[in-house]
């Protein structure tokens, strides 16, 4: 009777046993990496806006406070986008005939809001509230990065759940005094990164107690964010 299989199939069979383990491990690793990559999360992707507005110029160079435009950040879930009127407070006088500002003037004349492109878009099943974070000493730059150095704003973090939980499980790593919340420069080297210096942890614990930040069991409970 002729052989059904060539001799080489012996090697193939043995290889496939070990090979499958490596293939499985590789696939798992690749999927995990792709999931966390900015290609999937949209992080570091600078979004074009209808107006050539630079946060770097207005915040970094001119020193305008975040709250001048994002007025509801301390009282509402939404930080708020400024109406065209806020722009015109200055730009009716400054650069009032600059071609860059034409869309702003058009919006003002037609009484039609500028349609900004959203950069940080959380899924609809997440209840996020800006005011509580600001009130408990979470700084703007902790989540949004150095907006004062971004000509075009991009998402500085993955916005994945593991990233939220990093702080919700151990807020002391990131908390800062309330007076420093809007300070873009505050400990910039540690924002968004592993922040476990003894100094920060000691201060963080103290602030956590002082601001009555809820215990971990509540902060990481499902219904805190998914209601």
């Amino acid at each position, binding site marked *: 009777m002729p052989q*059904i299989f060539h001799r080489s199939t012996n090697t193939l069979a043995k290889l496939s046993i070990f090979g499958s383990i490596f293939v499985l491990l590789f696939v798992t690793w690749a999927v995990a990496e792709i*999931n966390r990559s900015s290609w999937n999360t949209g992080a570091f992707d600078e979004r074009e806006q209808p107006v050539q507005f630079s946060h770097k110029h207005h915040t970094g160079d001119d020193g305008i406070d975040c709250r001048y435009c994002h007025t509801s950040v301390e009282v509402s879930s939404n930080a708020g986008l400024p109406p065209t009127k806020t722009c015109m407070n200055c730009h009716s006088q400054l650069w009032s005939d600059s071609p860059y500002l034409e869309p702003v003037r058009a919006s003002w004349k037609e009484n039609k809001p500028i349609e900004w492109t959203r950069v940080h878009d959380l899924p609809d099943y997440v209840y996020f509230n800006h005011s509580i974070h600001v009130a408990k000493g979470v700084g703007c730059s902790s989540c949004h990065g150095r907006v004062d150095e971004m000509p075009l704003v991009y998402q500085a973090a993955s916005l994945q759940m*593991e990233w939220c939980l990093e702080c919700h499980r151990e807020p002391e790593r990131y908390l800062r005094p309330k007076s420093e919340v809007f300070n873009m420069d505050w400990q910039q080297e540690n924002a968004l990164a592993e922040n476990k210096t003894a100094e920060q942890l000691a201060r963080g614990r103290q602030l956590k107690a002082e601001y009555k930040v809820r215990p971990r069991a509540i902060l990481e409970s499902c219904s805190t964010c998914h209601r």
Partner: protein
Amino acid sequence: MASRVDEPHDDLIHVTPNPVIEPGHTAASVTDKISALVLKRKTPLAWYIGFFISFSLANVLMFTIAYLVTTGIGIWGNNWPVGWAFDIINFVWWIGIGHAGTLISAILLLLRQEWRTSINRFAEAMTLFAVACAGLFPLLHTGRPWLAYWMLPYPNTMNIYPQFRSPLMWDVFAVSTYASVSALFWYVGLIPDFATLRDRAKNRAFKVVYGMLALGWRGSARHWHRYETAYLLLAGLATPLVLSVHTIVSFDFAVSQLPGWHATIFPPYFVAGAIYAGFAMVLLLTIPLRKFYGLEDFITLRHLRNSAKIMLATGLIVGYGYMMEAFMAWYSASEYEGFMLKNRIWTGPYWWAYALLLITNIIIPQILWSKRARHNTAILFIVSLIISVGMWLERFVIIVTSLHRDFLPSSWAMYRPTIFDWSMFIGTIGLFFTLLLLFIRFLPAISIFEMRTILPGAAPKEEG
């Protein structure tokens, strides 16, 4: 001279009136007869009819699942307070049926019960297909089956892990372990037979497929040595699973604090019930199989008789379980337990289910005490069918009657299955039989090489 211990088969063959294999067979005739089922014999018309019916029902399942996934589990009848109904009833029912396979293949192997040999392959296949049907229910009950991998602990971007304190999580591990060990056990047992089929096949496609599945088996002494070791190890691994899987399934209920579920008797009584249902299904399948394929020589009355005895024993344990449930409801002096029991048996709207349960599961199977009933295949078949219904009713009673009367009377409600509850259940029966019929058609339903070992004179003679 060889002692009786050295030749355990001889007494089975010559002493007992109903041997495990009818006299007159040789190694060649056994191999011929079983492999012919797959390779030579014309597929009987009954196979085509059976396959047509079961495949149609499997398609009903497919359409139900498609509708379920696109619409949501609201198409089922479960609603508060009966949040679990057909989905979990059918899950437990199917998982229970699977138990006989592992019991036959692992425990009876370790206990050296030679009569298991001609039904183990078949029972293992039955286990696998029953577990496949069972797995569908909790998977689809999640509502989003495409996210079912969330139940596994893997490093995810949500940075959360499964809740290991939940018995539902234990279920995931118990059932998936059970499925994989059963599949492995079944496959390892098939390897020498795949080689036989490879060598006997005339068609090239069959040769290649069976050849790949045989993993290069040549039947050398070294192969056999390793094979026996592996098989024994797997049997050892599978043995605790017979007890653990249904114990953990019973924890789904027993760990909760609902009257009617919160009972320490649950694990042993669930395991006994599972074996009870499993053997009923084994008989339900083997009786027509041996008849249509003329396998009376290999699956003898002795097998049927032994299965009937196991059913009788486990059925009595189940009866004891019902008794203890009732006793504890009274003895605990808990108002809620007492109410639950009274409502379940007598005053509640589902009293008929409990009455039917007692009739089908406890009263009718007592006929198996009679030797004549145990030797009559028609009676055995009907009793097995009744027990299968009874075991389904048992889960219905446990689940629905405990849930439909909540602690708050304002939450009381009735459970009524919708047409999709039924089509899903009947569909899985279709899927089960489709897989089983394909198995009978393409794989040796009886282990060829193990049958050869129980032939008279197969045991090695001791010299001197």
